[in-house]
């Protein structure tokens, strides 16, 4: 990517993003940005619109309006597959492992968007369980393994901006820990990450910043250091 | 499959049923139909009624059961042949002949249903189509159907052995077969009423539920397959009734009654009129019938037109005529 943008330093900038599913208007002007190498979370209640936000960034919703800058390029009018080629990797809520492909084919499916993606070796090193089951059909994996595969899949492509949706959903604590570790590792490696989470404790540990979404709008932003101070504010949002 | 796509208005149907039922529409339409033969060419009118019934029967399965059968002609045709045979060869009275044909259609419905309901959606369509083709060839080769020539010269006979159905009444310089007309009218209306009743019954509700979420219905303890089969057989039976009646009207049964084109036609009628609506198939049947009649001179352009209508319906007009109106008026038809 051109260096000019590097000191601008923003990997993702979303401004006034509106999105619809058919008739129903879900996002009412989302604004937030993520700097290179940062990890931010999108928090909110069920149906707040976090998943939709990620989908809208990728152009997977119905109508959408506003602006989505992916490392310096306007993506709002691009078709989904072009956006992906800007270096965006998405790990969907429902994992979406392909049952018609085995683990290795699943890993090899996404075309490389940049040269410096991880090699299969590196990935297996990161997720040893996948190595054991590399020849078995995608959906035969247990929930946790499917989750790892879903993440590993996007690391290969060299995408530097990762959109991770509910990656701890319905997972056993032991696996939650594992996943947490790998996310930290990625952050160290300089990936830019947007994390959608219900599991606040999980998110708190690793995020630089938290955006709170309500009714399709960003209503608050809390940085890691002011987190301790603003717990009950957050609880209010999340309705604890 | 997303049933809500498949029959947009069925929801309003279900809700409409909760309103108290009105009787005047029935009486009104009866009154209208009673004077039709004095204006319209009666034989044509009667044929249209048979097709209307056929389409309604089909719609019971598609619109309310969510199952697209692409082989309904086989029930229509089988009943047509067997009724014809019963009346012509065994000399049964018309009502018995029709009863016999319809019963046979029901049996065939069970046989085919048992096999077909094992698959859903598109497969169901293909399976019914193929099985119907099997029936088609059976009819082609069976000794009593007269193969390509069809079963011809079927007498109208005497209703209950008393009333001569071929009796005609002089009206102007035209001969009106009123006896037959009202006989057919009665049958069609009976069939239509039965369908209306079924749709707005507990059974109808369960059918809807199954279509919405089969696994859930199953876990509630409904024997889903039995309900599907029941719906299938009922639809087949009524289709048979329509076929049987038609035989009496035109006095012959032929291969085109069992041919898959016929199955296609009835799909079109329903689609055009509006699936999942009660009146839709009737409107569709009449429209298609008239279309055929008017375009007959155009030779193969008829096929083209029919195909065109299909495409237009699917692309721009998925609710069908009545469905569209119902949607506009936001009330039950």
């Amino acid at each position, binding site marked *: 990517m051109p260096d000019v943008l590097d000191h601008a330093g923003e990997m993702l900038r979303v401004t006034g993003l509106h999105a619809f599913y058919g008739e129903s208007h879900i996002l009412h002007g989302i604004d937030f940005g993520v700097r290179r190498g940062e990890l931010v979370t999108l928090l909110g209640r069920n149906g707040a619109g976090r998943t939709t936000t990620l989908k809208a960034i990728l152009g997977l919703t119905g109508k959408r309006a506003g602006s989505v800058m992916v490392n310096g390029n306007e993506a709002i009018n691009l078709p989904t597959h072009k956006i992906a080629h800007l270096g965006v990797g998405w790990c969907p809520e429902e994992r979406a492992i392909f049952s*018609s492909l085995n683990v290795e084919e699943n890993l*090899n499916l996404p075309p490389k968007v940049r040269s410096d993606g991880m090699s299969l070796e590196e990935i297996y090193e990161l997720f040893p369980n996948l190595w054991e089951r590399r020849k078995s059909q995608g959906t035969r994996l247990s929930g946790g393994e499917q989750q790892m595969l879903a993440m590993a899949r996007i690391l290969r*492509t060299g995408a530097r901006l990762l959109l991770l949706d509910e990656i701890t959903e319905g997972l056993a604590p032991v696996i939650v820990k594992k996943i947490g570790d790998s996310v930290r590792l990625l952050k160290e490696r300089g990936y830019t990450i947007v994390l959608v989470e219900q599991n606040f404790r999980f998110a708190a540990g690793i995020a630089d910043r938290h955006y709170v979404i309500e009714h399709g709008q960003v209503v608050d932003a809390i940085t890691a250091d002011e987190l301790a101070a603003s717990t009950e504010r957050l609880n209010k949002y999340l309705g604890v | *499959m997303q049933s809500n*796509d498949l029959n947009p208005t069925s929801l309003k149907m279900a809700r409409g049923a909760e309103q108290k039922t009105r009787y005047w529409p029935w009486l009104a339409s009866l009154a209208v139909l009673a004077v039709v033969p004095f204006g319209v060419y009666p034989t044509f009118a009667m044929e249209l009624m048979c097709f209307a019934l056929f389409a309604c029967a089909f719609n019971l399965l598609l619109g309310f059961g969510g199952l697209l059968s692409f082989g309904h002609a086989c029930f229509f045709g089988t009943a047509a042949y067997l009724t014809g045979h019963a009346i012509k060869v065994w000399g049964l009275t018309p009502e018995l002949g029709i009863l016999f044909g319809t019963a046979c259609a029901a049996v065939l419905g069970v046989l085919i249903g048992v096999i077909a309901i094992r698959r859903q959606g598109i497969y169901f369509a293909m399976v019914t189509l*193929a099985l119907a083709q099997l029936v088609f060839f059976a009819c082609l080769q069976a000794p009593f159907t007269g193969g390509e020539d069809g079963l011809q010269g079927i007498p109208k006979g005497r209703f209950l052995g008393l009333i001569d159905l071929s009796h005609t009444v002089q009206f102007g310089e035209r001969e009106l077969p009123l006896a037959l007309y009202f006989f057919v009218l009665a049958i069609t209306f009976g069939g239509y009423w039965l369908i209306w009743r079924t749709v707005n019954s507990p059974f109808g509700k369960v059918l809807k539920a199954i279509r919405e979420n089969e696994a859930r219905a199953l876990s509630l303890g409904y024997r889903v397959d039995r309900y599907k089969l029941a719906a299938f057989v009922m639809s087949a039976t009524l289709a048979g009734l329509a076929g049987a009646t038609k035989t009496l009207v035109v006095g012959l049964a032929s291969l085109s009654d069992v041919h898959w084109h016929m199955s296609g036609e009835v799909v079109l009628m329903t689609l055009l009129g509006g699936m999942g609506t009660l009146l839709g198939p009737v409107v569709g049947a009449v429209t298609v019938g008239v279309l055929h009649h008017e375009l007959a001179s155009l030779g*193969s352009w008829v096929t*083209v037109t029919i*195909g065109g209508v299909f495409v237009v319906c699917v692309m721009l007009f998925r609710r069908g005529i009545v469905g569209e109106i119902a949607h506009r008026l936001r009330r039950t038809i």
Partner: protein
Amino acid sequence: MDIPLQAILSQAMLGLNNGAFYALLSLGLAVIFGMLNVVNFAHGAFYMLGAFVALLGYDYLGQWLGNADMRLSFWAALLVAPIVVGLLGVIVEKTMLQRLYKVDHLYGLLLTFGLALIFEGVFTNYFNVAGEPYNAKPEVLEGAVNLGFMFFPKYRLFSIVLSLTVCFGVWYLIERTRLGSYLRAGTENPDVTRAFGIDVPKLRTFTYFLGVALAGLAGVVAAPIYSVSPKMGSDLIIIVFAVVVIGGMGSIMGAILTGLALGLLEGLVKVFYPPLANTVIFIVMALVLLWRPAGLFGKEA
């Protein structure tokens, strides 16, 4: 009754010949269904179109271009017809089918049914159902080879070989290449596949092109054997549906093998009990459904 072995063998050969056509057609259907979830009722019509492109190219092209002795040779037709038909398919997909992926799959079936009627009707109007003979069979393929038990026309032998080659080519393309895994992924979850940077709409269009072109090819190959007529596809297609149901839609190889096997079966039935010949496939289908609802090669639903 005693049937001479030679009779059995020769009917088997003819059966294989039909089987090859079934395979080619059901393969196209399976590919389209797999990727687009559309039961392509117009498949028979495209098969017919393929034959007509060849016919028109040979008998009429010259007249149109005002140069009577300019003709599209059979070999050229083998290439041109599938492409022409395929492109027609592309138009259909881009203008109509594309809009139906979101709604119930049955609409795809209904649309293509309508299209089939249109194509059939138009051609019936210009070349009545009797149709016309296609006389462009190349010299080299004239005459028959002696198989010992029968004289089998060279051309039919050629048609068998060609069809099978193409079938397995397509099988390889889909099961063994990267493009294939794109296709399979796109079938299973279009949105996610797109999100990985794969142009799914284009893939769909391509798939329809491929499937339909296969039908077109089958049409060209069939043309010299059966005279070219507007209805040549419409009845065949129902048999092919049955084949596909028996084989199980999911599987490419399933479609090919089932096609061949059933053609063969049909041929043999012609020897032992002719009246059953045109129904045997449907009977088999019924039995298979009772025994394995998902079809022989289908994955459990």
